């Protein structure tokens, strides 16, 4: 599905991502973890096309996508959510999700202005599909409320629905549980598993370790821009190198 | 072009250029402490000139100029306190529109106070026909006044920012506002000071230029556009770059008269602005890296 090959990224003199390679298998949930400044967000931005890698190859559904514009990568079937939720100010929840249908619909500028019958039919399909997703995420009752005025957890759901509306093959989740309480986090965990069961591959960055350990099939650990481990959750928990970077070095040992 | 003409143009170019640089420095001071481009910057220059011209009826020239500068500074402080200080985290679009609105209000107020007539301060020394011979060129002593005063302003500013506690605190706010607050510095007052300072130097420039360029209620906007061009050209926030860029633009403009009709002269600087914005938005002298290490 997704394959990173020897990715490097420099910012000026800073080596933010250093020779990272890994694969995300179709139908799996993969997590990226690591301490502050480990380069997780940079990595996400490289995959989604917001940044171009300094060197290396990123392959998605068999195509090299490094340096491609985000909207073109999105059209190939990659959707993402953002760490600090990015909803569209002034749009209702339903409309926000309808934007997600953009890549799956065609009506152009003039068709939109003239409201041709074909446009009208397409519009109805978009609306119906968006509504279904809101129902799936149990926020249909807020369909006509401005999305940015919803409670935090509901905003996350709207963002997730928007991503799902794109019918992606790969879903990138940037800290889906940040700022949620224990119950909401459990809910998110359930949802992510369901998304995977719908046949969508998931790659996530997350700080809530219990969430990551519970749901991921595989985990990649980054530190100072380098991949230091890649394994199944149980092995990661036992990995001395991982424990060291998380708990820090022993004063005496150092 | 004769050598004589060449030098005449050169001096004219430098004179106008340093004027643009002063406006650009005004932009920079406010930009550095707030991240706002103050579209009313040109109006400060106009106000300084106009107020000094009016005061001249009552007091001698030096006092009139001082009065113009001080009153404009107060106007600058007032504007900041009334329209900017209490806004919580305003968006850039909002600030742009507010400062544009302010520039219109100041201009319209000037129109109602001083009318549409073109005014000017008298020459500080001699009159229109007095000239000083400097090697191959004859120049008006006012040009020397402009160069001298603006040069001193630039010098004093750099001393102010380097040496005085207030200047140091303003630089700290510019470098890292949050860290400045954590040092116990009143960042809001620094913003007010920055408005006063840039209003003050704008007004001073407006006074010394008045005998040469004249002052009219709407002379601010064209100056603001050129000042902005220079600020961008020199790298936003970089005042030494602004001086170099200002002189460069002034000279280009001066020589362009030989190639392009006078009426299109303004269009030249704007075209330069557009090209710079498209090609090198961080300025001629700045690199992307240096843009982050802001320097006065």
């Amino acid at each position, binding site marked *: 599905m997704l394959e990173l090959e020897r990715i490097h990224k420099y910012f000026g003199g800073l080596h933010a991502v250093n020779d990272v390679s890994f694969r995300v298998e179709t139908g799996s949930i993969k997590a990226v973890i690591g*301490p*502050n*400044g480990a380069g997780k967000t940079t990595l996400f931005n490289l995959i989604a096309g917001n940044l171009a890698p300094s060197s290396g190859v990123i392959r998605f559904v068999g195509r090299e996508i490094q340096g491609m514009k985000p909207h073109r990568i999105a059209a190939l079937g990659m959707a993402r959510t953002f760490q600090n939720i990015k909803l569209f100010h002034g749009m209702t929840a339903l409309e926000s999700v309808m934007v997600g249908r953009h890549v799956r619909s065609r009506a152009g500028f003039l068709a939109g202005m003239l409201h041709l019958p074909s446009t009208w039919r397409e519009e109805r399909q978009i609306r119906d599909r968006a509504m279904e997703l809101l129902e799936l995420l149990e926020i249909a009752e807020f369909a006509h409320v401005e999305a940015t005025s919803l*409670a*935090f957890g509901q*905003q996350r759901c709207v963002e997730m629905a928007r991503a799902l509306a794109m019918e992606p093959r790969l879903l990138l989740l940037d*800290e889906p*549980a*940040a*700022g*949620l*309480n*224990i119950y909401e*986090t459990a809910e998110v965990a359930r949802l992510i598993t369901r998304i995977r069961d719908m046949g969508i591959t998931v790659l996530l960055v997350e*700080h*809530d*370790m*219990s*969430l*990551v*350990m*519970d749901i991921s099939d595989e985990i990649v650990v980054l530190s*100072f821009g380098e991949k230091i481990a890649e394994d199944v*959750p*149980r092995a*990661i*928990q036992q990995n001395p190198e*991982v*424990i060291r970077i*998380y*708990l*820090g*070095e*022993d*004063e005496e040992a*150092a | 072009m004769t050598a004589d003409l060449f030098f005449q143009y050169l001096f004219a170019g430098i004179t106008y250029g340093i004027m643009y640089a002063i406006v650009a420095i005004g932009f920079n001071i406010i930009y550095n402490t707030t991240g706002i481009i103050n579209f009313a910057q040109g109006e400060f220059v106009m106000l300084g000139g106009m107020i000094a011209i009016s005061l001249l009826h009552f007091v001698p020239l030096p006092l009139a100029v001082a009065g113009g500068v001080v009153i404009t500074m107060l106007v600058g402080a007032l504007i900041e306190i009334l329209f900017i200080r209490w806004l919580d985290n305003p968006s850039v679009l909002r600030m742009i529109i507010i400062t544009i609105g302010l520039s219109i209000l100041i201009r319209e107020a000037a129109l109602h106070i001083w009318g549409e007539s073109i005014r000017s301060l008298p020459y500080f020394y001699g009159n229109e026909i007095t000239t000083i011979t400097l090697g191959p060129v004859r120049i008006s002593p006012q040009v020397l006044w402009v160069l001298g005063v603006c040069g001193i302003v630039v010098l004093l500013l750099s001393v102010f920012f380097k040496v005085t*506690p207030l200047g*140091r*605190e303003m*630089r*700290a706010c510019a*470098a*890292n506002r*949050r*860290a*400045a*607050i*954590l*040092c*116990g*510095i*009143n*960042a809001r007052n620094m913003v007010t000071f920055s408005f006063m300072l840039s209003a003050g130097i704008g007004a001073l420039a407006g006074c010394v230029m008045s005998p040469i360029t004249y002052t009219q209620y709407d002379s601010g906007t064209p100056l603001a556009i050129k000042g902005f061009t220079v600020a961008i050209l020199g790298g936003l926030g970089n005042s030494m770059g602004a001086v170099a860029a200002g002189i460069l633009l002034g000279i280009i403009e001066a020589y362009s008269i030989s190639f392009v009709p006078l009426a299109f002269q303004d269009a030249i600087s704007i075209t330069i602005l557009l090209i710079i914005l498209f090609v090198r938005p961080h300025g001629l002298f700045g690199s992307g890296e240096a843009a*982050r*290490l*802001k*320097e006065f």
Partner: protein
Amino acid sequence: MLRIRNMEAGYGNLRVLKNISLHVDGGEIVTMIGANGAGKTTLLHTIIGLVRPTRGEVLFLGQDCRRLEARRIVAAGCALVPEGRQVFATMSVEENLILGGHVLQQREGRAAVLRELGHQYELFPVLRERRQQLAGTLSGGEQQMLAMGRALMSRPRLVMMDEPSTGLAPLVVRDIFRVVVRLREEGNTVLLVEQNARAALGIADRGYVLETGRVILQGPAGDLLANRDVQRAYLGREKIA
């Protein structure tokens, strides 16, 4: 010295801290550990007044801080060494330190600032060597020392440090932590926020563990160090197979 009760805070709709209670007494090093995104930085920002708490109370030296501007809290004797150091990159080392002495100068005058400057140079000899250098050109460890020196210039009653070890080599981290210990010996009070739990607990008197905005554990540093749950807070619970 510092007492927080049932505090809640966050940004906009996002509630980062929930029901936080903690206290720091004079002369001790207290550490706050927790993973990324647990709310540690938000906690410090709320104490210093950069973020307003939505509920609960924050008392510093018996004074209610909830409505005070950040610079007033600094003037009252609470200093923060911010995350990522945040030195004034375009200014010299000495200028950075003098700016840190802003509140001291207002309180006790210029002479006191110069005296304190000497004291910081003694604490961080490397800063004296580089006094005329631009802060932005210092190495990461030197910048961290400068940030600490700058905060200490105000002669604070309480020093709060936000992840001083981030991005530094282990040897440098050790130097930094040695200075923290020395601060306590000089009678200072320190609230140390760290991700590097083992190192932080190694020097602290007491510790709190923060997880997704809540204090989940607290106690003497030695106890926490031995606690299996601390490991859990970082690596998550094991799957119940």
